[in-house]
């Protein structure tokens, strides 16, 4: 598996990737929302709204999470040590 840190990925590329996955940036320019519907994406493990500058996109069915240890631990408990 290829693991890429989004910290060094340019904003325009992150936005293009999100578009491919059915997401876009909210009008506030900070949070990620579902394309069209405008629902903010919420990290299921931390209940935090996912922000473009602090997100992870993890395998499965493209799971968007807030970049924090608790969410990553929870993801690994669900999916195994795949990262």
């Amino acid at each position, binding site marked *: *598996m*290829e*693991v*890429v*840190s*989004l*910290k*060094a*990925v*340019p904003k325009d*590329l992150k936005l*293009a*990737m999100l578009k*491919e*996955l059915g997401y876009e940036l909210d009008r506030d320019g900070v949070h990620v929302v579902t394309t069209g519907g405008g629902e903010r994406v919420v990290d299921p*493990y*931390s*209940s*935090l709204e996912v922000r473009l500058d*602090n*997100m*992870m*996109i*993890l*395998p*499965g*069915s*493209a799971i968007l999470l*807030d*970049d*924090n*240890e*608790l*969410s*990553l*631990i*929870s993801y*690994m*408990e669900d999916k*195994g*040590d*795949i*990262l």
Partner: protein
Amino acid sequence: VNGDRGPIREAAYGVTKAIIDSLWEGLKQIPDKLNNRDIAFIGDPETRRVVKEKRASAEWALLRKYIEDRDLWVIVQSGLTLRSLEGDPLLKRRLEHLRGTLHSRFGPLGVQIAEVVQRGILTDLVTHYAKEGATDQQLRAQIGTMLGDLMAHVEFIRTGDDPKEFCRKIAYKVSIRSPQIVMGRGRAVDALNRVARKIKEGTDCHVAIGSQDDQEYLFVFRTDQWRSLTDPGPDPAGRPSQPRKSR
């Protein structure tokens, strides 16, 4: 090594122009790559490094043996991670963010359990029980019950607390819920040591002392519970078991 997917390409951390170019070129394939677990986009590489390090640690392997609840697995690993983040001013924001996410998902009890793990107290307690011969089954039951009702098992001593009164309070609490953990920090450590002496002299409780940095803590066990945990059970040859003597 990453399961059956082959080695992870750590070099991707230093995201190069070539990697950026290949992501632009392969934009349309990204959903499939994610579905097939061929690619992952993490945030700060440090988040992943710390989490993986803790999940691979001997301490987590020990604690996991005795914890059956999946939420507790997450809380305990978070506690181990908090320990890694503390002390470094550069990591303070991440430490506070982790405490905040623990609180929003698991409430104050989740944060308290993580702190008991962060301070090394849970590991010390498990090691203490294991050394005295408690079985895995007994330890699982004891740790599960205690973590589920942690605050009923924990007392914080302050500098001005009267040792005699505090000793009486602990003796009462331990008669209901054993063990009791008494924590003291900084100047309150003197008061804690006085309480430890009083409990040893004035009760038949089993007492053990641990410490980390400027914090000390006591484990106080009710004697009958301590004996039942450390009793090796009936001898296979039919001789009656001998309860161990509390220290």
